[in-house]
């Protein structure tokens, strides 16, 4: 058995290690979000870094959780006072959030790409004003118009026009 003194130092060390792991996970997923924001200038280096971090984020956060969970379990066993649950839960949240976020595409939250577009015949459409702008293509006699006001929300629509797969983006 450990002496109470070294046991106490060990617990403090565990707290520090758990905080470091959780914080590291958080920073890992936060950096790409900060680097790639709408209406902010981007650099090739920033984009390359953001890409690498995002690519590896699922594996890194999984590894982080594998490290973090036994530490949290150990800390939970040594909880002596009620208030100690507060930092424990906070650490779990700090590590759990990045593990979840690494598996999300937050850009899609912002840009709402339309994956299953539906169309109406040009002569029957009521919702588009004659003065509204459209982006339009015609391939092999198939003429398609995407109203700009809708494209300004979805940003990406993909479909086949005249049999050719196209992506329209605004």
């Amino acid at each position, binding site marked *: 058995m450990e002496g109470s003194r070294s046991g106490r130092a060990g617990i403090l060390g565990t707290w520090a290690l758990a905080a470091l792991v959780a914080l590291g996970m958080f920073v890992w997923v936060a950096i790409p979000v900060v680097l790639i924001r709408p209406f902010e200038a981007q650099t090739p280096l920033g984009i390359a870094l953001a890409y690498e971090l995002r690519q590896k984020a699922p594996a890194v956060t999984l590894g982080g959780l594998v490290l973090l969970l036994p530490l949290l379990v150990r800390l939970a066993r040594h909880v002596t006072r009620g208030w100690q649950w507060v930092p424990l839960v906070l650490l779990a949240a700090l590590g759990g959030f990045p593990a979840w976020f690494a598996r999300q595409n937050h850009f899609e939250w912002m840009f709402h790409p339309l994956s299953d577009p539906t169309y109406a015949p*040009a*002569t029957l459409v009521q919702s588009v004003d004659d003065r509204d702008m459209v*982006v339009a293509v015609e391939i092999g006699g198939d003429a398609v118009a995407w109203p700009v006001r809708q494209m300004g929300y979805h940003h990406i629509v993909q479909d086949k026009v005249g049999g050719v797969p196209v992506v329209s983006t605004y």
Partner: protein
Amino acid sequence: MRDEQTGSWWQQVSGEAIQGPLKGRRLAGVVHDEVSFGIWKAEHPGGRVLKANPRQKDRYESADWEHRMKKVRTVTPVSKGDPFPPRTVVIGVSVNGRAKAYPFPRMREESPVLDTLGGVPLVLVVGDDQKSIRVFERTLDGRRLEFLAKAGAQPLRLLDAETGSEWDFRGRAISGPLAGGQLTKVKALKEYWFDWKIYQPATAVYDRGEAFR
């Protein structure tokens, strides 16, 4: 943009993959129109239009959003020698590796604008709505044409100086010796100046057109 298959990141304006396994590859561009719905509908009565998604209808951009966008700050560097303010709308054209920006307000005043870019004679035409614009190669069967607007015509009509044939906004000769002729459409991007110059750093800027000015 990101593709699901490889996870590569694609630059929206150029269609080029800038990060990931497909880095350096480029999607083929499709010649497109950016015109008002009334004009498009009249030209394509059999066409189809993207339906508003009922769940998101209320969140679509309002009719005045372009006006509001003018006030959004830009983040790219503004250099002293810049010919226009950052949010000037330009028509960006790139032919045979030569790029040129045509400021939209001047196109409205001067349409049709005749120019030659990368060795290709061009005509830029602004539609009756004063918002739509199209760019064509102004050659037909190897013959170079010069256009002017037919005064007072509604909808707009162009005349070519060589034969006096009448042309519509689709670039089609509808009467005269060249009737039935169709000009070839040229890819053009309606863009803010600050954005165009980032992707086309060597871009020329429209100063004055050729002939009939």
